[in-house]
């Protein structure tokens, strides 16, 4: 290994993380977030979910949305560990907007060599949000499984579980052609594109099925090369999602610890009781592991890409475990109040359960890791 001791987390990265923490605390505190996204509790409410569009615009102005765009494509070329720091803060704020999607798309584009990639980077720099449309009807975690086909320059089929579909300006579509998987860029407004919102549990996310009917598309990565691009981008995607989840888990821990410190029962604060104290300690440890593994994975992206996949799988597995435990314990220890809509805890509960599944849960990451470490015996 040849990673710097500090994960490459220097002054610039520190400043970004601090700025992001301040920004979210001021511009989207949790009471405001709740008002924004949880105003209507009815499960049968309109499927279009409200989001923080104004804050997204401000982030564009701040340059955060183009952080990961390489310098030679006109972006800021921030090391991945810095992007992780930002994403962690966005997760901590349960940010309802296409930041994660756009950053994920950026890392996919970085591995595309089609001409379209340059234009897509330019769009991001201009403030466009781009998202990935790659998942099949079964929610497969193998990005090469797609129900969209490509032939004669146009796309047909449906991508499911597309994140931020309504909040984004365009899609990166994975499609199967006669020579294999290719990646294509499609504007949301293009003829033949239809978006059908999903009614989802998570109140901070937006998800849809996106159908393509003879949609003409810009090639980002030629037929037969798409799988390799997605494989290369996977460590970054996992790392970014894990960073988001770690931030959200920290919110869950902190909020629950604060509640346990004030709520009294049987003459003591809840935190006095080992049945509460010890699980909260275990949660803290799980979060610490996940966070350290996220930084390690991010640092590997910057300095030892050959190890990035294994480290990203570890980070995501740890983040999923921390998320699952954090969800369960934050509601349980908030007691009756934690079971109500008015308590903010449910926002994070729902976001984390969603995140746990998006790129594959912990067990899935571990089996992927086992294939790397046991079959290949490539233990670091």
């Amino acid at each position, binding site marked *: 290994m040849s990673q710097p001791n500090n994960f490459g987390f220097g002054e610039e990265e520190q400043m970004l993380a601090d700025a992001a923490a301040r920004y979210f605390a001021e511009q989207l505190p949790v009471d405001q977030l709740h008002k924004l996204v949880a105003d209507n509790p009815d499960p049968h409410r309109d499927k279009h979910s409200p989001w923080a569009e104004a804050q997204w615009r401000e982030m564009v102005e701040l340059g955060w949305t183009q952080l990961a765009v390489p310098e030679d494509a006109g972006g800021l070329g921030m090391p991945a560990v810095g992007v992780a720091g930002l994403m962690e803060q966005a997760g901590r704020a349960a940010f309802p907007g296409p930041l994660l999607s756009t950053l994920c798309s950026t890392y996919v584009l970085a591995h595309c060599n089609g001409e379209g990639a340059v234009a897509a980077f330019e769009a991001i720099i201009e403030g466009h949000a781009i998202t990935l449309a790659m998942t099949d009807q079964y929610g497969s975690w193998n990005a090469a499984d797609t129900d969209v086909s490509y032939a004669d320059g146009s796309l047909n089929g449906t991508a499911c579980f597309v994140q931020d579909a309504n909040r984004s300006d365009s899609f990166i579509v994975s499609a199967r052609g006669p020579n294999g998987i290719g990646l294509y860029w499609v504007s949301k407004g293009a003829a033949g594109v239809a978006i059908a919102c999903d009614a989802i*549990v998570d109140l901070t996310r937006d998800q849809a099925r996106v159908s393509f009917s003879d949609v003409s598309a810009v090639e980002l990565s030629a037929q037969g090369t798409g799988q390799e691009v997605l494989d290369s981008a996977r460590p970054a995607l996992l790392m970014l999602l894990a960073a988001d989840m770690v931030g959200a888990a920290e919110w869950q821990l902190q909020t629950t610890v604060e509640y346990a410190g004030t709520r009294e029962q049987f003459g003591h604060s809840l935190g006095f009781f080992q049945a509460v104290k010890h699980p909260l300690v275990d949660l803290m440890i799980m979060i610490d592991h996940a966070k350290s593994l996220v930084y390690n994975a991010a640092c590997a992206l910057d300095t030892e890409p050959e190890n990035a996949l294994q480290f990203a799988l570890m980070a995501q597995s740890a983040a999923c475990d921390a998320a699952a435990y954090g969800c369960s314990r934050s509601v349980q220890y908030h007691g009756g109040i934690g079971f109500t809509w008015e308590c903010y805890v449910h926002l994070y509960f729902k976001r984390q359960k969603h995140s746990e599944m998006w790129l594959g849960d912990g067990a899935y990451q571990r089996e992927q890791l086992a294939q790397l470490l046991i079959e290949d015996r490539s233990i670091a």
Partner: protein
Amino acid sequence: MNDARKDTQEQADFRQYCRDWLNANAPEPPQVRLPQTPLEIMTTEQMDYLRPWQKAAHEAGLVGADYPEDCGGGGRNDCQRIANQEMHAHGTPFFPNVIGLGMAAPTVFHHGSEELKRELLPGLLSGEDIWCQGFSEPGAGSDLASVQTFAERDGDNWVINGHKVWTSLAHFAEWMILLLRTDKSDKYNGLTYFVVPIRSALGNGVTVRPLIKITGETGFNEVIFEHLVVHDRYRLDDVGKGWQVAMTTLLHERGAGTLVTPTAGGMRNTKGESTSRAAMASALIALATKAHRNGKLASEDPVIRDKLMSLFIRQEGLRQSQRRAQVQALTDHPMRIPLQGKLLMTEIQQESAALALEIEGMASSLYLADENAPESGKWPLSYMNSFGMTIAAGTSEVQRNILGERVLGLAKSK
């Protein structure tokens, strides 16, 4: 298990009667969507379907079989569980007056005056009067003895002021069982237990406001008392004995009381779907054989299989333990298994729902209103609702304290 094998003659006759009656009289599946448990009944349409069913079952003698006849019961000996078994087997809907039957009735029966029993129990058993429970308060959850809602004596009356929360069914309820403070200087001996007619007092000392659950559904409420006047005849047992009376309520809530609660149906009411808890893991297996996970069926994923079987075994273990608890020689402490019931049922249900989300994978993101949601979004709903169960009626943490202290004899933690 052939429950009939050890029936007395009375039980055997009654069992046959129940079967015949159910074959002829069990209700048709409803036109409205019913919730997963009676505690979540939200609409009058649901109530209008369920109340007549309880009334009919009561008239036929399947509800309150072991209560005396002058209380509206059947006057039988240990026959309620026969009726329950037959109703479960038949897959009938559940009864709407769940708090009345499970908690209020045995409490009134054990602690109420003869007059009060005869006044209240018939309407309770028939479902004409829905009951709710006023125990929890914003500052008194697990620590029930710290309730602050106050009743002040005023001649033959009491004047009640305070705030109760998490009161399921309060928006339908005619009556409420109510644990109140009558002496601020003594935590345990300063409590008194009442039954209170709240419906008639709405807007006149009683306000019922719906609370919204984490799921987005309503189903429980807060109830605010402002100078509500209640006659002393609605007191159960002595002034200052409220804590002891509440224990009777809780014992029955935990399935460890002396009177068998009339229960019908289970999680679901439609005849096709299985109605017992034992079917929870089977439902998961069925889900796993349909859900895709990582390019194959979830049921083919060995890690999922291992978790599924673990849950299945725990569920069967619970069932067999409850069977074992019936044979005195096979347990060393009479409360050892009964006191596990609530803890295990709720935790198994929680873990089952969590595993269902793993099985569904990304499709678990889809909720009730999504036409593509597996099983209509039942599992994310169940998972969220499961926390109501591990929190209410003694959190899992409190249940473990009780087991450690009462059964294992370890020192009291609180």
